């Protein structure tokens, strides 16, 4: 029998329903695994008592019959989600001590479906980072280890990815603004789905860049992503951008049959200097989908090159506006003031003390590109380029392409600290394959597809049509079956 904490959501659901296991047993196994994994620094606010309380309630509900699929499933929750009366800091010093009086819509829906929260998970501060090195709680360590180096789990949902990969939970929530679900999933050999913009409510999730942010599941399998998305998705009157359209039964769409589907391979994603192993993995993925009966076509997404620069105008601009609320007045940290300090000094000192370097940098870049005289040259131009990037995708979908296959990341997980001396732009390049998807509002999924020469996991990304997560998940399911990725990190922690 697999250790209980290593179960998938689907297997746990079946075992719970059969009465082979209880949610309390599952939850205790996960809490024990999490308590023994301090070296990974994934869980930063454990919620043992709440978890056991929720697990007992779930067991009672399962006994009564008709419990939803997520009932009794222990999850980790990214610190970006506001959870009632539980610290919710977005891994920032400026939200030190903040305990929301409300519950985010996504976590509320998960809890209403019976899911159990084990605790809050580490992340990059305000979801700004690609290596989980900007957190006020310190770095998360990737459970994958092939030499002496401690590696990044990716970011910003690094705690979520590490916790899922190390079997500290059955699955976790993540959020993705430029690749923050898919890049860490690829770095840890797990599955990460960013849904279509508007599929999941953003209400109660600490905002980074509101036109790009989207929550999604981080899981051990594609099936689990389908099950968990089902519980997270749906219209919410409290988020005016959440879509009022039906949520299909995603799991029932997993047939593995992709015969007749058209998969596009975008030529612009062949990057100069891309490691040969990534190219080879991409070629393998192409062949796997072809062997499964899909038609493979070469496509062009001509504005791909401009996605990252457009993102690094739009995201900081929105962040500078969203993060204006951290002013030391309503919640979180307030700086100690000197004699004679007024309100401006209070703002300036509070924000200087509370924000980390990367957050400050992005807030200031955003302030600059929105300032008088530069708004048109930078911000408006970036929004026009975003229109063109979205049109690139619309054009290929109009030509009959059902999904697009790309690498998920330009490298495998790199050692923590490797980018310390690089300029910020080097770190931004991590998101080169994922950021286009956010700009176009599309669903995208990272699926583990192989190991590199050192034994580190590598992922492939599939991009789908808007609102067709079901079809995308099915293609991902076919890819997952062909790739047959079953490796797990050796436990060293």
């Amino acid at each position, binding site marked *: 029998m697999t250790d209980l904490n290593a179960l998938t959501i689907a297997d746990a659901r079946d075992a719970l329903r059969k009465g082979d296991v209880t949610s309390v047993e599952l939850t205790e196994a996960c809490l024990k695994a999490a308590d023994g994994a301090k070296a990974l620094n994934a869980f930063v606010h454990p919620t043992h008592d709440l978890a056991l309380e929720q697990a007992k309630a779930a067991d009672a509900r399962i006994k009564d019959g008709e419990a939803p699929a997520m009932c009794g499933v222990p999850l980790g929750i990214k610190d970006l989600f506001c959870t009632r009366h539980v610290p919710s800091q977005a891994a920032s010093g400026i939200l030190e001590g903040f305990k929301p009086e409300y519950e985010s819509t996504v976590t509320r829906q998960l809890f209403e479906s019976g899911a159990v929260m084990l605790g809050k998970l580490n992340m990059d501060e305000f979801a700004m980072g690609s290596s989980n090195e900007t957190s006020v709680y310190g770095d998360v360590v990737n459970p994958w280890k092939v030499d002496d180096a401690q590696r990044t789990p990716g970011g910003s949902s690094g705690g979520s990815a590490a916790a899922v990969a190390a079997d500290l939970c059955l699955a976790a929530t993540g959020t993705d603004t430029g690749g923050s679900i898919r890049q860490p999933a690829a770095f840890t050999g797990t599955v990460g789905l960013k849904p279509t913009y508007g599929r999941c409510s953003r209400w109660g999730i600490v905002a980074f860049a509101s036109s790009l942010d989207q929550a999604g599941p981080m899981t051990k399998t594609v099936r689990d992503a389908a099950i968990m998305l089902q519980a997270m998705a749906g219209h919410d009157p409290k988020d005016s951008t959440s879509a009022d359209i039906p949520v299909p039964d995603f799991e029932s769409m997993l047939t593995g049959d992709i015969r007749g589907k058209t998969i596009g391979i975008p030529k612009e994603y062949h990057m100069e200097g891309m490691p040969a192993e990534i190219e080879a993995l991409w070629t393998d993925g192409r062949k796997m989908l072809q062997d499964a009966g899909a038609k493979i076509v070469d496509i062009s997404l001509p*504005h791909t090159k401009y996605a990252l620069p457009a993102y690094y105008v739009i995201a900081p601009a929105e962040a500078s506006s969203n993060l204006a609320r951290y002013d030391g007045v309503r919640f979180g940290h307030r700086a100690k003031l000197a004699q004679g300090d007024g309100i401006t000094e209070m703002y300036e000192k509070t924000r200087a003390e509370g924000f980390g370097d990367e957050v400050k940098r992005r807030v200031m870049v955003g302030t600059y590109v929105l300032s008088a005289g530069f708004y048109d040259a930078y911000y408006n131009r970036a929004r026009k380029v975003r229109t063109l990037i979205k049109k690139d995708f619309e054009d290929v979908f109009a030509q009959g392409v059902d999904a697009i296959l790309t690498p998920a990341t330009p490298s495998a997980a790199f050692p923590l600290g490797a980018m310390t001396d690089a300029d910020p732009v080097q770190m931004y390049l991590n998101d080169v394959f994922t950021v286009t998807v956010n700009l176009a509002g599309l669903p995208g999924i990272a699926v583990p597809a192989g190991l590199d020469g050192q034994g580190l996991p590598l992922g492939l990304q599939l991009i789908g049509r808007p609102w067709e997560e079901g079809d995308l998940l099915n293609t991902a399911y076919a890819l997952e079956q062909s790739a047959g990725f079953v490796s797990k990190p050796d436990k060293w922690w």
Partner: protein
Amino acid sequence: MSIDLDTARRVAHLARIAVPEEDLPALADEFNAILGFIEQLQEVDVEGVEPMTGVTPMRLKRREDVVTDGGMPDKVLANAPDAREGFFAVPKVVE
């Protein structure tokens, strides 16, 4: 476009983030690296292209203009660093 120390100082103030004078040169360098990167956008022909306002084409929902929530000052103030007599307290703002 190159950011000098005065611009870095001005942007930090606009963002209401205190930056010590000695940190401004490094900050200006980082701005320049990032702005150098986003400068590529100038190459793109955007003639006649509408700037994106919403990524999903949908009409925003409307609702009745009525109060739907509120009446919970204790909860609103629960996380305030300084709350007194049902209000947020801040340093003096009017002379």
